[in-house]
């Protein structure tokens, strides 16, 4: 902490580091952001965790959570804001941290803040003809249900703003594709986009030249809804972000609220939450494995994955009462204690799963067709992974150690012994095969964690009494958790009411989708599908 404060004093001289915040925070004027960001990047802060837009009612601003791939536990927060609500502009950082590309588009979409020199200021989730910027607190536009198709110009024209020689802002536009490019729409209804994602793919025969993801088909405005819901009411929505790591998202939100409200959760609840997180991770990886196999044409393997995932769903059903959405964690603990034969069920499942993984390896990993399709395809170097913020198994397959369970242990993860599964620590490059095999390895590691937790389950109750109306003290809270797809984050800004002032979920999937273009360039159509499957994104998580 002290080191970081010293560093901040160096990169931003004269700026005060705010006291009493979770992470070292400095507020900057808009024109200082780029200089500080560059210096931070040079000092090793190369991973932009999250970029949140906030409406302070008198000003519009952004919050940057920045971490490092070397000094992993360090997190700094930069803040900036502009008082101009009519035509707000800020400076882009997408050339410093590449992952800011999509985040800044999101901020523009929701708050109308345009970023100078950002090459692509299209709306990201909402249609181009959407009136107003919905996350502003004074938003009261009425948008009719659209009856016309999306204007193709909105999809293909990239507006941007920049300074001309006299320092005035000029608007520019650029076309996404040339007139004679062979552009194929993959999705929104396509068997291999894992949801309603729309990819516009420029092809040269079988070779992919460019991929342009078009988001928003399942944008539900969850973050906006959260602003008018109470904290317990938000919980079911967190499960519906990345529905395959529902428990983990819910756990993360519960932790964020509990930390902010100063609620101490019993050990037993934390252990069970962790077991459920790991079960969710296994279920997600099984589905990811199966979907990858199915995308490559092996439908039978997919069914085997689903068959074994069903066992986890049964455990969820028995204990939590829900299957895909267990709804088990609540603020202050769990809804109910586990059923009496829980520990036995878990140990039986662990034994069964270990055998199944061997079968998967024989069926699919050993298959020369499958390995031939995955090897040497979609190289993602460690630097690109960090720059794009592709956390989770994808980043670890490229040798970037980014497991939040290790970096910032939460719940019971500091009480178990497990190793972070990494691939290619020497070459620092990951191909589709690395991203494939790391998931199966992680399942085995998760089984180890579950086994340890299950054996040492403490016995001190599963919930504590919390006030019926949860109110968080004024302030900003951030909680990271390792979801099945990477670094999931919850940012809550509270003004002391029973509703949060602003909630932002750091979606691991959005950055994964942004990796499609650099990974697929020059590969074949079939590889686009394999790479997409190996990234294992979930669209509702990206669209929110």
């Amino acid at each position, binding site marked *: 902490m002290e080191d970081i404060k010293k560093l901040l004093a160096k990169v931003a001289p004269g700026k005060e580091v705010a006291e009493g915040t979770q992470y070292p925070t400095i507020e900057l004027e808009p024109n200082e952001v780029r200089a500080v960001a560059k210096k931070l990047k040079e000092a090793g802060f190369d991973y932009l965790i999250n970029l949140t837009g906030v409406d302070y009612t008198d000003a519009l601003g952004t919050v940057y959570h920045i971490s490092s791939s070397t000094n992993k536990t360090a997190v700094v927060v930069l803040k900036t804001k502009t008082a101009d609500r009519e035509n707000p502009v800020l400076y882009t950082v997408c050339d410093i941290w590449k992952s800011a590309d999509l985040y800044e588009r999101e901020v523009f979409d929701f708050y109308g803040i345009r970023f100078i020199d950002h090459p692509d200021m299209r709306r990201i989730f909402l249609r181009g003809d959407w009136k107003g910027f919905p996350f502003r607190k004074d938003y009261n536009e009425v948008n009719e249900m659209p009856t016309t198709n999306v204007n193709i110009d909105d999809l293909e024209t990239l507006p941007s703003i920049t300074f001309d020689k006299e320092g005035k802002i000029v608007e520019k536009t650029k076309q996404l594709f040339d007139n004679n490019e062979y552009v194929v729409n993959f999705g929104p209804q396509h068997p291999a986009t894992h949801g309603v994602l729309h990819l516009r793919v420029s092809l040269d025969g079988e070779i992919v030249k460019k991929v342009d993801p078009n988001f928003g088909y399942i944008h539900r405005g969850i973050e906006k809804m959260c602003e008018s819901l109470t904290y317990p009411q938000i919980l079911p929505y967190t499960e519906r972000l990345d529905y395959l790591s529902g428990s983990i998202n819910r756990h993360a939100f519960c932790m964020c609220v509990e930390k902010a409200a100063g609620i101490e959760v019993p050990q037993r609840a934390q252990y069970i939450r962790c077991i459920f997180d790991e079960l969710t991770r296994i279920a997600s990886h099984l589905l990811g494995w199966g979907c990858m196999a199915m995308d490559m044409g092996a439908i039978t393997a997919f069914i085997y994955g689903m068959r074994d995932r069903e066992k986890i769903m049964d455990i969820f059903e028995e204990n939590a009462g829900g299957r895909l959405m267990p709804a088990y964690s609540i603020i202050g603990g769990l809804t109910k204690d586990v059923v009496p034969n829980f520990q036995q069920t878990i140990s039986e499942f662990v034994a069964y799963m270990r055998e199944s993984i061997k079968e998967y390896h024989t069926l699919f990993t050993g*298959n020369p067709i499958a390995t031939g399709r995955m090897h040497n395809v979609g190289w993602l170097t460690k630097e690109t992974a960090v720059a794009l913020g592709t956390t989770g198994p994808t980043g670890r397959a490229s040798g970037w150690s980014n497991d939040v369970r290790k970096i910032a242990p939460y719940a019971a993860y500091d009480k178990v012994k497990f190793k972070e599964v990494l691939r290619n620590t020497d070459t620092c490059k990951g191909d589709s095969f690395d991203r494939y095999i790391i998931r199966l390895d992680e399942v085995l590691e998760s089984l180890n964690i579950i086994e340890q937790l299950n054996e040492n389950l403490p016995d001190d109750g599963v919930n504590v009494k919390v006030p019926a109306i949860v109110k968080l003290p004024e302030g900003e809270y951030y909680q990271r958790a390792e979801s099945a797809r990477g670094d999931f984050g919850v940012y809550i800004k509270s003004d002391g009411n029973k509703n949060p002032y602003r909630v932002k979920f750091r979606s691991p999937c959005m950055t994964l989708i942004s990796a499609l273009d650099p990974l697929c360039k020059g590969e074949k159509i079939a590889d686009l599908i394999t790479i997409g499957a190996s990234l294992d994104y979930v669209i509702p998580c990206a669209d929110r």
Partner: protein
Amino acid sequence: MKKYFTDIFSGIWNLLKGMKITGKVLVSPAVTECYPEKRDELQPKERFRAELTMPHNENNEHKCTACGICAMNCPNQTITVKKSKITDENGKPKIVLDQYLYDIGSCIFCGLCTRVCPQGAIEFTNNFEHAVYTRSKLIKQLNKPGSKKVEVAKPAAPAAKPAQAGQNEVAAPKQENENKQ
């Protein structure tokens, strides 16, 4: 050259091993079941949340006081509590439940309503067969016609409250709810 041949034969060998796995499954029994035929064997687990119900006792009485906390806590406005003010035989004003409407079409089965209910008047049951022909049938009235609130002796009422629900919340949200109407 040697690699060329070893690659081919190891490839074929691995393919055959994969076929062995599927072949094994071919002869082992299926894991899926015929649904309506084997309906009796299909028992959801006890805690499975599938449908919100309001249990009635043998005298056609329920525990609902029509406070509306469940409706207020529901994230989806799935529950509508219709109530009216009457004067009981002692001349005291009293709130009674007219209709407890539950729209299963918009329910997300989060279980928040049952957790916050101070009376324990509603609960989730296992009946998962919700298919109907028209959407209007998804809106269910949970209190049976002619039912009324079970009369309990005064001191017994607080004891019925579940542990998670706080004491202070009962009064406050009730007023808010009334203001809304």
